[in-house]
């Protein structure tokens, strides 16, 4: 995919290769590189996968592999969680039940 100069894009760069990472790491982390992702305005039209230079929102230059043109927010509210949906009703039932003399502090 082609990104045009000035597009808001995301770049990726390897900060430390797996064999350059600190010694005390769990096995699963030790075998993968440390990677950073930064977003900014593309300085020169490029394709995804190319080396690219960007200017971040505060004006700093970062260089890395272009991975995303116009990146999206991917997080959301998920879906209603059935296990949570009746909690309000259950608690209200206790709150409003006839207590006789059971409630000490009212």
């Amino acid at each position: 995919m082609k990104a045009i100069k000035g597009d808001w894009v995301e770049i990726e760069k390897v900060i430390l290769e797996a064999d350059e990472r600190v010694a005390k790491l769990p096995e699963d982390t030790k075998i993968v590189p440390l990677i950073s992702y930064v977003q900014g305005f593309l300085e020169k039209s490029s394709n995804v996968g190319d080396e690219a230079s960007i200017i971040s929102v505060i004006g700093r230059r970062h260089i890395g592999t272009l991975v995303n043109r116009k990146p999206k927010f991917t997080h959301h509210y998920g879906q209603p969680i059935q296990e949570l949906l009746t909690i309000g009703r259950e608690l209200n039932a206790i709150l409003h039940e006839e207590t006789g003399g059971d409630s000490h502090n009212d």
Partner: protein
Amino acid sequence: MKRLEGIPITTNLYQAIIQEKNEIIKSSLGIDFLKYKFDQIGFNYDQMMNHYSYSIDKIRDIQNSNKVGNTPLVEMKNINKLISKISKKGYGAKIFIKDEACNPSGSFKDRRASLSIHQAKEKGYEGVVCATSGNFGAAVASQAAMHGLKAIIIQEVFDSNKVGQPEILEKSRACASYGAEVIQLTVGPELFFTFLSTLKETGYFNASLYSPLSIAGVETLGYEIAEECQTRFNQFPDAVIVTNAGGGNVTGTARGLIKAGASNTQVIGASVDLKGLHMASDQDFNRKSFTTGHTGFGIPFSINPDRVDVPFSAARPLRYLDRYVLISQGEVFYTTEMLAQLEGMERGPAGNTSLTAAISLAKEMRSDQIIVVQETEYTGAGKHPTAQLTFAKENGVKIMRGNPENNIPGENIIIPENISQLSIKDVDLDYLRGSFINFKVNNKMDKVELTDSEIKFLSDETKWSIDRVKTFLF
């Protein structure tokens, strides 16, 4: 994917940056921490905390002029009624919440960021850098925006497949919304390396979570709680419950309570129990549904507070904790629903950790006693039980109603079936104190005996008497 030319970061450079740590911290914070060090393991905490000499009144002025603080202290009327129904006669303390979500970026972290940004502006820095799991980044970015400073937020966001939890992604979005540059990293403690490199490269101010400024900013929270309880109820709170992660929330709040005269108020820390999940594990990273306020920070940061981005952390929870309790993930989600549906306050979920513990504690305490839960946080897409639990399900974590005692972090999340199932597990604080001392002593450079000043230091750090420290050591 290959390392690109022009950025030759090698292991040697990594070590070089780490070796420059003290110099980088000194120039980016304006404190020579080493001047507070004495003997082999000691450092003068009180002198360090007075380094910037801001009085509590001055801090309040700074915060008020930046829209921070004076948040409402509200009674949990319906939750308190429920607690009285399930408590023994004469028991069921009243819970009040400090609604910290009312701060400009939506959490108590605005207090923590405010002094750093004030200092950075006064000293003429062009920008600030911070390393954070989230809310603090938004607070730094928000305060920086008010002062026209640039902000760089460095965040651990993704596993090696570039999958991030919704809660963390939302916190990244929040930082960006205040105009910050966000550097998103994959899992690993080398975040610290990126942080130091960025400070060195930019010459910006170090808005550390653990500097004296950051902790002093939280003191107003404890101070406001004590002051308002005294005015409204003619007494200080009997207990204040504080969500505990890196220890700064506990430390600052307790110091504020003491400054207001509430020295007898019990300070209780609460964390979500994530036992069994390794915090630096790429695979465990997305199997937890809380990204802060949990034992992955709470326990190691108590035993060794000086594992942070400053040589001596100003956050020292063992100096202030009277009690430390744990609750499970499912219990916090349950309580988050309770707060929304009985009190009409949609907050959290991570900020409801201490409220969850408060409900169990209230049952143990007399009905004429007052518990203050000292925080809430904003909620929204990503930072919501539905988002976190949908993500957990997608990652193979089972969600079910049941007895939360059966929860296994990373495998299941058990939502209580009944309010009576909310319970707390006490952490043995003396065990943590002993571990703290062992850690300090084992890291000594040579075998020379501790000086009297060092023993006094260990006593202050652990709230143990000098005799008890000596008995433990010899």
